[in-house]
């Protein structure tokens, strides 16, 4: 009996996952259509999203107008870090960034509506108010990354080239896991959604600067506690031929996909625990 039920459970799980992705696509598509009803507003907010993130890079440019290096890294190298972090975070923000609204749904009780639908709650919350304007952030990151790739001094090998898309996707996965874990935390602390900003927006800001800038404890925290270092610091150190932070061995530059998968699994567990602990407001 036990043996025969195992594949069935697995099929059921796979079925749920496919169903979740399908539902995500449908809900996101609906929000895109509704956004496109006001095209001017969409263009303006996308530009605003672009400009808002570009400010960080303007600050870096202003810094480099007064100095030649920061923590021993040149402007092209810092731009490389910035671009990688910006694109990875931008992709995560685009796909699951809306989850930061979960606390509000818990508070006002509208989460209950999502619970009664025969669709995975995670997919519904992630696609809720899907904001295509967040492409502004991705675009800005891509532009800086493009600039960095043109000006940075790197001996390109097949391995380094192959690592580029792997880095971006794994980085996006790691940031997605942070978003989901932060949302799970909101089941407990309903109006403390801003804590998430410290790890999401704060995390991407930190990764824009060379690891040598920060105190060792911060770098350790960003490597072993919330493994943001795998988004760009470690693989970028390999590509640029820089010493690794914390004297880590060389092969860690190739581990971001594993770290991303592990982070997503942990975030998934946190999400399920959070959802199970959910008690409706009952109003």
């Amino acid at each position, binding site marked *: 009996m036990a043996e025969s039920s195992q594949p069935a459970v697995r099929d059921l799980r796979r079925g749920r996952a496919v169903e979740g992705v399908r539902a995500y696509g449908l809900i996101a598509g609906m929000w895109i259509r509704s956004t496109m009803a006001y095209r001017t*507003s969409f263009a*303006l*907010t996308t530009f*605003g999203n672009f*400009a*808002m993130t570009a*400010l*960080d890079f*303007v*600050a870096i440019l*202003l*810094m480099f*107008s*007064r*100095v*030649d*290096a*920061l*923590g021993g890294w040149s402007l092209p190298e810092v731009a490389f870090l910035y671009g990688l972090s910006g694109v990875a975070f931008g992709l995560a923000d685009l796909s699951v960034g809306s989850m930061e609204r979960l606390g509000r749904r818990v508070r006002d009780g509208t989460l209950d509506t999502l619970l009664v639908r025969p669709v995975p709650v995670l997919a519904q919350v992630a696609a809720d108010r899907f904001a295509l304007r967040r492409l502004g952030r991705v675009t800005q990151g891509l532009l800086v990354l493009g600039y960095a790739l043109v000006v940075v001094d790197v001996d390109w090998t097949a391995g380094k080239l192959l690592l580029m898309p792997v880095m971006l996707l794994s980085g996006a996965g790691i940031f997605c896991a942070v978003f989901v874990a932060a949302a799970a935390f909101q089941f407990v*602390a*309903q*109006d*403390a*959604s*801003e*804590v998430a*900003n*410290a790890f999401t927006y*704060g995390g991407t*800001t*930190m990764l824009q*600067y060379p690891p*040598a*800038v*920060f*105190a060792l404890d*911060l770098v350790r925290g960003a490597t072993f506690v919330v493994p943001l270092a795998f988004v760009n610091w470690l693989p970028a150190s390999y590509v640029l031929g820089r010493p690794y932070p914390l004297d880590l061995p060389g092969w860690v530059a190739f581990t971001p996909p594993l770290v991303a998968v592990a982070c997503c699994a942990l975030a998934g567990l946190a999400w399920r625990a959070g959802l199970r602990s959910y008690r409706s407001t009952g109003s």
Partner: protein
Amino acid sequence: MGAGSGRLYVAVAAGGFRRYATYRAATAAGVFTNTVFGLILVYTYLALWDEKPQLGGYDQAQAVTFVWLGQALLAALAIGGGGFEDELMERIRTGDVAVDLYRPADLQLWWLAADVGRALFQLLGRGAVPFVFGSLFFPVALPREVSVWAAFLVTLMLAMLVGFALRYLVALSAFWLLDGTGVTQMAWLAGLFCSGMLLPLNVFPGVLGEVVRALPWSSLLQAPADVLLGEADPLGTYLFQASWAVALLALGRLVQSAATRRVVVQGG
């Protein structure tokens, strides 16, 4: 303004203070986030000042103090948004503002009082902790003289006035635009860039530096910081901030009277 209406605005300010005081978890979360951002910024500034000591006339301790002051004032002065303006815009969009206009209170003063209450709470509830944390764990340059602290408090009050006046203009734009998202976003961008939140304005190179230091946003962070750090003459700073406050509040009045003439109350 009689004693009665004075009491009214004090009550409105107290209401604004209490309203934000009820969000304890949100305040704690904000304290945490401001502290983390302060940490990240402090290390980047230390690296910058390592590379170029005395950049912009600050030493490292002054640069560090500037970071934590910025984190303390970000929410209080709503430099990155989050003040009263979203609510007023929503009331303009839905037409609820007509009710406000019939109240026996001045629209601008009413919202100013509410925003001052909010700002005071954000300063004490949210700004003080990151600032104290920063002062304990990093080398900071804080004045010993009580007179400098007193002068700093005056610049803070003037900063609140300028910050309010700017955001009041942003909110009133909703009378013409209805959807104020774009304007709000542009106002945040200008606020973050031109106040010194991204980088102290004295570090900005050449003409760009001179221009941003002359704009009203420099009243929000740069001006109080320079008084606290002993880099600016308090009287000159008061004059600069007060001039912008008077000019912007007066402009707000003008726009308000033009806007309220447009109000058409719908319905039977």
